[in-house]
Every structure is written in C-alpha cells, then in structure tokens.
C-alpha cells in the first residue's frame, strides 16, 4: 500500500457516509412531515409559519395531539380496510408472481414461435389509463357476478401481471443457458430446472418484484373505489381513507389522513423487512448450486 491511501480512504468513507445521510434525508423527510402533520390539530396545521414539530398556536410550546390516531383507530372502516388490503394485495401478488414467473420462464428461457407477440400482448394489457378501462371492466365484473374482493384481485392483474412477467423475463434471461443445459443433461425435467435453478438464483429479484407489485396493489384506488361501492365491508385502505370526513361536509380531516398514512406505511415497511429475509431464505434453500 502506498502512503496517503489511508487519508484517501478516509475521505472516501466520509463522502460515502454523507451520501447515505443525504439519501436518507431525501427519502424520509417528506414522510417525517406527514408524521409531524398527523400530530397536529387543525389549528396547528394552519399555523404560519409551519412548525417542524407540533406547537401550541399561542404559547409555541411543544404540544402534540394523538387525537387523529385515536379517531382513525376507532373508525371500524380503517381497520377493516387494513384487513381487506392485506387480503387483496397478498392474493394479487401471489397470483401475479405465479402466473408471471411461469410465463417469464417460457418467455425468457424457452424458444418458441410467437414469443415476441406474446410479450407485447401481455404488456398491452396495462397500457391504457385506468379510468378508460374501468367501465368495460365493471361490465365484466358484473357479468361474472364476482364479489368485490375477487373483482379487485382479478382486476389488479391488469397492472401486476405484465409487470411481474416482464421483470422476471428480463432476469431469467440473464442467467447463463449453460446452467439449464447442464441440468437437463443431469436428467432434470424443465420444471425441476425452473424450481431448483431459476427460482433460487433469481430469488432477490423475485422478492423485489413481488414487493413492488404488492405495494402497487395495496395503493390502488380507482378500481377499489368502484368495485366496493356497494359492499362497504370490502373497502381497502385507500378507499377507507377517501371516506374519512371532517365534522361537516367539505371539511377535510387532513391530520387524520396523515395519521392513517403513517399507520399504514410503518407496519408495511416493517413487515416487508421481515418477510423479505424469510422468503429469500426459503427460495434459496432448495437451490442446486450452479
């Protein structure tokens, strides 16, 4: 090692850490503001200048309120919304991942005619704005007589399935063909190759894809609003939040909306963290080292 490399490394480390801090602030500060707002009463929200922590409008003392959280948690719709969102988003993700990874296996690793048209056909599903397809979709749902939750799960396929299929196709393709061929020589069926080689090797990608699809489904609003209109028991979180109201019509319960956003986001992230490790571990466990 040359002299001076130590100082250089130190500078590099400081720069790196500064960068991380900067990224963290950028990602988290707006969310902090949501938390801050959720701890304010209406009058505190309307204060000028806005305060970085909840303060009393007159004395300027630190005085957070938990009223917004109490109201949100006492609202049956919200808690039921959490349950509904979990059911709907999980089912959507599983279905989209299963159907998507099968399709991606074919599209990324097998040779057959009509591969490209199939890829584009799947992508075409999701190229219209939601509101445009809503009417037709509503007609389909009504004709099939599906319940609200099932309708949401199926209609969310419109945007999750093309996503999972395309992303997984891209990742499967990356894997060297030699891996598959050697497995075939060993007498493995294509499905075994899929299960034992493709899935474990792309596990991180699979989990990320599922995660992104899950959150997309979790956040969906327009379809959910329409399909659950008749069945209030099936409303998901975004819809439940849209049904939050102030004491009188037109008044927007901004603090409560922010409280709900906080209550939804934090556990979601924590859960994702826990599951992420489990799933990756599970998938990698059955791997045949390439």
């Amino acid at each position, binding site marked *: 090692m040359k002299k001076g490399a130590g100082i250089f490394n130190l500078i590099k480390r400081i720069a790196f850490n500064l960068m991380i801090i900067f990224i963290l602030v950028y990602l988290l500060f707006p969310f902090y503001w949501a938390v801050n707002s959720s701890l304010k*009463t*209406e*009058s505190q*929200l*309307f*204060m*000028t*200048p806005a305060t970085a922590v909840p303060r009393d*409008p007159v004395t300027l003392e630190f005085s957070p309120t938990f009223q917004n959280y109490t109201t949100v948690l006492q609202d049956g719709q919200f808690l*039921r919304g959490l*349950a509904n969102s979990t*059911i709907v988003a999980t*089912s959507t993700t*599983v*279905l989209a991942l*299963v*159907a998507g990874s*099968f399709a991606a296996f074919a599209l990324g690793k097998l040779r057959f005619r009509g591969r490209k048209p199939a890829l584009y056909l799947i992508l075409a599903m999701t190229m219209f704005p939601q509101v445009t397809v*809503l*009417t037709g979709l*509503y*007609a389909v749902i*009504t004709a099939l007589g599906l*319940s*609200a*939750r*099932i309708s949401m*799960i199926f209609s969310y396929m419109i945007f999750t399935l093309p996503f999972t299929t395309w992303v997984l196709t891209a990742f499967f393709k990356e894997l060297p063909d030699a891996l598959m061929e050697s497995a075939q020589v060993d007498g493995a*069926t*294509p*499905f075994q190759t899929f299960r034992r080689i493709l899935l474990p090797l792309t596990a991180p990608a699979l989990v990320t894809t599922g995660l992104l699809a899950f959150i997309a489904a979790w956040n969906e609003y327009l379809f959910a*609003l*329409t399909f659950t*209109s*008749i*069945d*209030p*028991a*099936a409303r998901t979180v975004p819809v439940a939040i*849209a*049904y939050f*109201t*102030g*004491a*009188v*019509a*037109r*008044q*927007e319960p*901004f603090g409560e909306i922010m409280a709900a956003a906080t209550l939804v986001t934090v556990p979601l992230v924590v859960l994702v963290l826990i599951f992420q490790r489990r799933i990756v571990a599970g998938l990698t466990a059955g791997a045949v080292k390439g």
Partner: protein
Amino acid sequence: MLKRNWMFGFVLLLAALTLLVVGCGEPEEVVDDPEVVEPDEVVITVAAGAVGMELELTRDLAEMYSEANEGVTVNVLDTPDMVEDRLGLYLQFFEAQSSEVDVYQIDVIWPGDLAEHFVDLYEYGAGAVADDHFPAIVENNTVDGRLVGIPWFTDAGLLYYRTDLLEKYELDAPQTWDELEEYAQIIQDGEREENPDFWGFVWQGNAYEGLTCDALEWIASNDGGTIIEPEGVITINNPNAIEIVDQAAGWVGTISPEGVTTMAEEESRAVWHAGNAAFMRNWPYAYATSMADDSAVAGVFDVSPLPAGKSGSGAATLGGWQLAVSKYSENPEIAADVALFMASHEGQKYRAVEGTFNPTIMDLYDDPDVLEAAPFFGSLYDVFINAVARPSTVTAPQYAAVSELFYNAVHDVLTGQKNAADAFEELELDLQDLTGFPVE
C-alpha cells in the same frame, strides 16, 4: 406428469384464494343493516353523503322510516365526500342500470345531466310539497316539467368577516365589492406590521367548479347575467361581466395572495381559520369550523350576504343537495316515499336542529327550534331566496363542459394570461360551438 403437477397447483391456489376471500367476506356483508331482513321485506338503499354527522342523521331518518313502515327497511350507503368520485360512482351505476341503489343524493348541478335516470317525483305526490321549498331550487330540479329531485338541504356563498378588525379600523361590513376592496386593503396594510402572513380577502380561485361559483357571484351581482340564461341565451360577453372579472383579477397579489389562484374551499379556510384574513368567501360549513374552540377567529367573526356590484344587491351561488329516485329501482313508489319523507318538513327540521343543515323549506327559517339551534340561520333566508343557480339545467348534459370553459377563462384572467374582454369573447364563441345557443 409435470404438467398436472403445476396446473393442479395453480388451480389449488386459485381455489384457496377464492375460499379465503369468500370466507372473509360473508359474515361482514350486512354491516349496514343491523336488522335481519325478512324474505318479503322491501329494502330501499339510499346513497348519501359520508360525512360524520351527515351520515348519522341520514341513518336516523332511515331508521325512523323503517320503524314507521312495517315491511320496509331503509339502508344508507355512504358515498365519497369528493364530488367527482361520487359522480363517477353514480355514473357507473347508471351505465350498468343497477337497481342496487334506489335513492340518490345528487348535487344541485346534476339534475339536468342525470334526469334520464330518475323518475318524475310529481307522479309520486311531490306536487303537494313542492311549493314549500325555495322556488329557485325547485326550478333547478325541474327538467322538461318533471321534478327529478326533491330539495334536501341547501348551500350558498357567504361573506365571512372579522368583527374585531372592522371595529379596530372603524369600518362597517362592506356592502359593495369596491368597499370590500378598500377595507381589505386598509386592514391588510395595518395588520401586516405585526403579521407578515396577513391578507385582506381569501376566496376560491383554483380552476375548478368552485371558481365557477365565485365568479358567477361577482358577475350576477354586477348585473352581468348568469353566463347562459335559463331560456338558453349566451350572455357572458357583456361589459358588466368583463368589468367585475377584471376587478377581481386586480385582487390577486394585492388584497389576496398570489396563491389564491390555487385555492379551493379548504385552502382559503386555512388562511382564515388561523386569523390571517380579514374577509373570506365561503360556504356555510365554515361557520361551524370557525366557532371551534381552538380557532383563532372564534367569537370575532360574523357572516353576511356577499357584497353587491352594479346591480345593488349581492348574489350567492346556489349549492346543496337533492334526493332523486332511480328509474331502475325495483320499488320506485316506496323509494319515492322514502325520499319525500327525508326531505319533508319533519326530516329537514330534524337535520337543521341536530346538524345545522340548511333547510330548503322556507318556513323552517322562522321556526323557533331551528333558530335556537342555529341563530345565524335567520340572516341566511335572504341569501337563499336570492341565490343564483348555475346554468346547469339549461345546458344539460353539457354543463360540465360549459363550466370548465368558464372557469378556465376566468382563471386565465386571474393569472394575468388574458384580459377579461378577450377571454370572454373567446368563451362566447366556444359556448356557441358547444351548446348551439344564440348570443344575446
């Protein structure tokens, strides 16, 4: 073997999901009607506002009706408070000709547009009560001689003003827009010394339906017509309308913040509520919120009719909600009866006393019980009786497009992109293209 293996898995997964979802769904289906529904019982569903008190009062009325009428259960289905979302939902129901909802709570600008989906309430005995309501609202609900909605509660623009500040600067409540402009400037100049966030006048200037309401008030109070008159004549391009809208554009950045052109009701109320404005144009709802304990303006404000322009009297845009009965209902007679009950003298009085909803029945503004519960109602009678309806019924089904052209034209003037004369000359042409109506 392989094929079966995964196909089976897939089907199993689907089945499991279905079970999971259905299993979770069933027991909760009936949250909204605690009573058990008898097989031969008629169920009437009322789609109504979701706001806390509003929903509660509607449920109370539904229960009253169910108790008084054996064999009928009235359910209340809450709908989103965001007006566009609510309209979007209703349209999906109508497109599917759904019989799920029997009675709809509809906005004052919808009767013309949605008339084809509703029954004529005159055929179900509304004729006996129609004269009790404000004539302008009944007129607004009448499409080709059919009464498509029964007025339920009303709304109109009001001027909120700070009594303490008027006193401090020795001013009276403004009677004209010129006075308002002058007073707002005086108060703003004085208050700015201590409070840099203070503004004279806040209102709704964003490009949306609310701006149509605000601008219509300016124009109507200045003898500038109502954009398109009830008999189908386009009148917007006239000197009085141009004058007052140019005047309003002058407020932006002087007595009103630059940002007023991005404000809706809640944004302007935020300024007012924190004590940062001398005057505010808003709907009656802000009265209750301004009286809240932690409000900076509690006890130091009052409301009055909006200022006048050339016409010598102020104008308030009519808002509010009606009940309409779906043509696709399986029991239109009973549904109409429910609607008429909810909008009856008794029903409206209950809502006025318990929730300060503004009745559409004129008598109720003299009712001692109502006045005791909401003393400021007395001064509202004049506002409502003189309220101006937006040209929604005459331009149906194109009102949304008319309004969009109008508020965008006004918004262009407010943001300084055009002057009112040019904007309204173009607007006139656009309205002609759209509606085919003649120009005055």
